């Protein structure tokens, strides 16, 4: 569909040589509408960062397509230089670690003015200073004079991450891929950073692919959007945030939500826990047959889940689930066969 600003179609990414080939992302498809927030959640190694990098154009998909504003980003057919540039400017990424993602030998001014000058958003130094000041104010780093001449090591982690946000904004992107953007920031500063990211959505209409392992952050940031739960390279459930946190359908989503500790003693101690059959996360080198969750799934159905891999299918209300049991219960057994 073309109303998506950014779209992943059957993305596959493999790493390694022929001898040891790992499929980090296996057939992932989703689309994000303009101004929407989609969260990718999942445990480490599930492929969420790899997916984010493919969306942001930092990794080439082994198979499948990324479409930006309807145009195939990696294919050669009819793709002009202008299209490529529009995509490069239109999709920006904020990395997890603000200590590693800013050049330590450049001042904040240099970090922020380089893309402005390179892409001719400003014509000279005076305009650059003005524009950089505006960006710093927008991300809450004011008075601007205190920051503009500093080096990254002179700033705290929270301030550095704000600089990363400002850098992503320099080229006026339509889509921001935020890869664990607040995970390394202290609790008391996290909310204000999330508020800044939220204000970009409100004021500038930025679309987000928000990648996190923290369900509480996902819920807070994407309450009006959707959450996609990934497990071992694939999306197992995609639903609106309230649906997902209040009534998860996929057994893995259920397990995550029942396992996560809550910052509320009575709630967290009285939560019902879904007991898994196994604690082991499957190795990417030896993936289980059928549904990849079946060795751990408490609702495992022998002869089905260990034989046939469930597709991600729509189950109504705009949600998608990849589970034989859910398909059977909601769509009737015919759909399973």
């Amino acid at each position, binding site marked *: 569909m073309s109303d998506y600003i950014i779209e992943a179609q059957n993305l596959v990414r493999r790493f390694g040589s022929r001898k040891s080939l790992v499929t980090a992302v296996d057939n992932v498809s989703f689309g994000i509408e303009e101004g929407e927030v989609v969260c990718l959640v999942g445990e480490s190694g599930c492929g969420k960062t790899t997916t984010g990098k493919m969306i942001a154009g930092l990794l080439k998909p082994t198979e499948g397509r990324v479409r930006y504003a309807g145009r195939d980003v990696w294919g050669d057919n009819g793709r002009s230089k202008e299209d490529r540039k529009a995509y490069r400017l239109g999709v920006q990424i904020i990395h997890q670690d603000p200590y590693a993602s800013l050049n330590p030998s450049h001042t904040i001014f240099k970090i922020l003015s380089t893309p402005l000058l390179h892409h001719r958003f400003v014509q000279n130094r005076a305009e650059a200073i003005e524009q950089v000041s505006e960006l710093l104010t927008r991300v809450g780093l004011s008075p601007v004079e205190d920051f503009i001449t500093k080096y990254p090591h002179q700033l705290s982690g929270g301030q550095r991450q704000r600089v990363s946000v400002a850098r992503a904004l320099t080229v006026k992107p339509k889509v921001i891929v935020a890869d664990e953007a607040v995970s390394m920031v202290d609790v*008391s500063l996290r909310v204000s950073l999330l508020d800044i990211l939220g204000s970009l959505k409100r004021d500038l209409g930025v679309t987000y692919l928000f990648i996190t392992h923290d369900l509480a952050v996902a819920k*807070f940031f994407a309450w009006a959007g959707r959450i996609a739960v990934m497990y071992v390279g694939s999306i197992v459930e995609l639903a609106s945030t309230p649906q997902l946190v209040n009534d998860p359908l996929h057994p893995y989503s259920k397990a995550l939500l029942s396992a996560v*500790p*809550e910052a509320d003693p009575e709630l967290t101690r009285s939560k019902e826990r879904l007991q898994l059959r196994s604690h082991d996360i499957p190795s990417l080198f030896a993936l289980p047959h059928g549904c990849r969750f079946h060795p751990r799934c408490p609702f495992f159905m022998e002869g089905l889940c260990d034989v046939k891999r469930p597709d991600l299918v729509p189950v109504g209300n705009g949600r998608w689930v990849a589970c034989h049991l859910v398909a059977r219960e909601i769509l009737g057994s015919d759909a399973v066969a």
Partner: protein
Amino acid sequence: MSANRITEQGRATRHSAQVVPLSMKDLWVEYEVRRGCVKAVRGVTLDLRPEESLALIGESGCGKTTLGLALVRLLAKAARITEGSITYRRDDQELDILSLNSRELRRFRWRECAMVFQSALNAFNPVLRIRDQIYDTARAHGVTSREETNQRALELLEYVQLDPRRVINAYPHELSGGMRQRVLLAMSLLLSPQVLILDEPTTALDILTQRTIIDLLVRLKADLGFSMLFISHDLATAAELADRVATMYAGGIVELGSVNDIFYRPYHPYTLGLIHAVPTVTGDFEELVSIPGAPPDLIDPPDGCKFHPRCPYATERCRVEEPQLEPVAGDGHLVACFHTDLVRRDAADLLQRLTDSGEARR
């Protein structure tokens, strides 16, 4: 079942529940750095009660890890304990930790008080098999029988739900993060310590792995009856594991109380702010409020209350005088703040909202 034997042993060696195993009194720790002197821990007085689980919560740089390291005298060379005392008790014996020599310290560490460090991967020697790490540990602390150590190690590994024969011959890199954390826990229990200090035991673990570690800690503590001091920046882990919670800010404890007092009836504006800042996952959307500003520079901390530059209740008095921990309503609930009545008034709104959303969930 060998796992049952561990439980049996735990019951048999359970420490008499009367004495307070670990007390700190007015403890000060400083780091000498080029720019000056970092006051990382400023006058902490704290008792670890028998068989309790005490959580030390706070943000990075608040001094919580330094405090943990000071308790087992593992501070870096640049650090000095400038004032205060640490007392360890077992039955009717008392040990002054700060006056122990290195041989006595070696006897104290691990046998009496074990520490599990933050990063489970870095806590191992990468070129030694788990078997040899465990044996080295045992030998360093006076157990010389290889057979005995082996037997105990196998039992403990099974007890922490690992496949003992596979794990004991593995190298650290062959184990996942959760498995390594479980091996560390098993190793820390090797010599049945009375006190266990855990530095961020579940940080950097995935949700489901974190769950198994939390459940394991709950079971271990119930079976073996040690006292546990755990350091965490994660409020959710504290809410789940702690009997009591101490909030640290800028090197000092600003609030101490039962887990329910801290989460439902906080008296300190910083504690209240932290709770405002962390959403719960299940249930309805909650508004969050961030704490303005950033934690202070501990080389040159502000005068008076260290929180006053960020505090909405700050008055002239807060800027000059530092409040001390004093009892407020509730059993053993201590707060260091001049304006607890104002904080309570505003916190009542929060509690109402939490209850409402709690009821909506049910």
